[in-house]
């Protein structure tokens, strides 16, 4: 599904912050991406999410060399990836329902075909009574769940989550982790970037550890 070969990344003329990254993400797999702050977790997620191009090396996503793809093809690939941002990135002028349904609307689907799906997912993540609320009035945990719901509504083949439990209490963090595990069982490959050791200890999964720009994989 994802293949990195000798990938390096630097910003401008600065030092290389990711060096010689070589790894694979298999279909239906679950992994944590961890490392100290500033190790390059978010940069690696951006490479996976196609908002950054590597300075060197080869990145293959769903069988395509991303360096050779047009902008429209990259957009099409991005629709197969769900992303949970650390800062949620919900649109304040839309209701929770509209935010979650956004990927389906962008994909050109008729609302009648997805309304029930979105409502079911919102109820499943505990936002059934907050569907009409706008993000500014949601709590941190509610925003987090809305962001996760938006990332998974289109049933992506790959789910990337950047510190998805960073804004919630341990109890909710555990519940959100179970949500990701459930999605993985449904067939989505999951990569969770976190430095929360306690969270990773709750689920036995592959660990990708970034340190000094290099990646160490613990199966």
């Amino acid at each position, binding site marked *: 599904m994802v293949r990195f070969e000798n990938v390096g990344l630097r910003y401008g003329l600065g030092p290389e912050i990711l060096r010689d990254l070589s790894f694979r993400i298999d279909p239906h797999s679950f992994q944590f991406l961890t490392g100290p702050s500033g190790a390059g977790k978010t940069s690696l997620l951006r490479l996976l*999410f196609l*908002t950054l191009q590597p300075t060197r090396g080869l990145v293959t996503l769903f069988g395509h060399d991303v360096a050779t793809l047009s*902008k*429209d093809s990259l*957009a*099409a*690939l*991005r*629709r*197969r*990836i769900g*992303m949970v*941002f650390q800062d949620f*990135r*919900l*649109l*304040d*002028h*839309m*209701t929770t*329902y*509209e935010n979650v*349904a*956004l*990927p389906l*609307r*962008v*994909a050109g689907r008729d*609302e009648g075909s997805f*309304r*029930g*799906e979105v*409502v*079911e*997912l*919102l*109820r*499943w*993540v*505990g*936002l*059934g*009574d*907050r*569907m*009409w609320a706008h993000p500014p009035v949601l709590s941190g945990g509610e925003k987090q*769940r809305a962001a996760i719901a*938006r990332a*998974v*509504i289109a*049933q992506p083949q790959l789910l990337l989550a950047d510190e998805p439990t960073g804004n919630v209490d341990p109890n909710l963090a555990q*519940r959100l982790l*179970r*949500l990701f595990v*459930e999605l993985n*069982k*449904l067939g989505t490959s999951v990569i969770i970037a976190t430095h929360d050791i306690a969270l990773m200890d709750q689920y036995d999964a592959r660990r990708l550890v970034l340190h000094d720009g290099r990646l160490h994989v613990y199966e």
Partner: protein
Amino acid sequence: MKMSDDPDTTDLAAPPGAEALPSMRSPLVPRNSISGRALVGVVAIMTFLASLTAGAVMLVRASANDWQADVARELTIQVRPVAGHDVESEVRKAADIARGFPGVAGVKAYSKEESGRLLEPWLGTGLSLDDLPIPRLIVVDLASGAAIDIAGLRKALNVVAGANVDDHRGWIEQMRLMSGTVVIGGITILLLVFAATALSVAFATRGAMASNRPTIEVLHFIGATNQFIAGHFQRHFLLLGLKGGTIGGLAAALFFAIAGLISGLAGGAAVGEVSALFGSFAIGLAGYAVLAIQVILIALLTAGTSGYTVHRTLMSID
């Protein structure tokens, strides 16, 4: 997406009894933002100013053409008193010759009293023209569309003692030069106002777009194509531009309509002088069509700038 009934996940579910199903009502691009309202205001004001300038240039141009046409439709025959000739009979002879000349629509010979009245502003009242060798004037109106043979008329008037034909050529040339200068000046001002309008609208649009950057980013991240995003923003900003442009254009049209009404109803010296410069203040159907085209162009400029800004933003994200 079907979820399992895992108790650990279903306990996240909302309390039962949810009301009617929600629906998508919000547009992708937020409406009624402060920056959007400010943009409508800027577009309205700049459209109003550009419309006023365009209307004024059209009025001056039309008036200048009218002045030229009026002057070119007349010529004057001067009959100077010549010793040994009766000026009254020479005037009558000249008027008869002119009246019978092809291309002449009418002839008016100014009497001695009328000539005196023409000179009153300069020489005062109670003047006896018998004491002064004042030339007598014959105003010849030319038929519209007819080309008169000035040289032939001059030749025919050779039999009239002291007759001289003034075809106002010098005046017409001066008038043409003056009206040309006024129109070129007006067009230059119009172009400058258009440039200022374009820049103000472009900067105001970019300002309004800056507040929409999070929306552009989110749409990009969830897989919307650049065309999809730019299309939505262009449509939204086209509507904003049309709204502002229509307000400004209608205000300008109203201004010209009221000014035309006032100049038509009111009299007085002040109105007369303004009318001399701008004519009847009526810009006509062509003028209103120009205002409408301006509104559309400004709306397209707003949409184009938003599209450009979206592409620039997307390039900076990538």
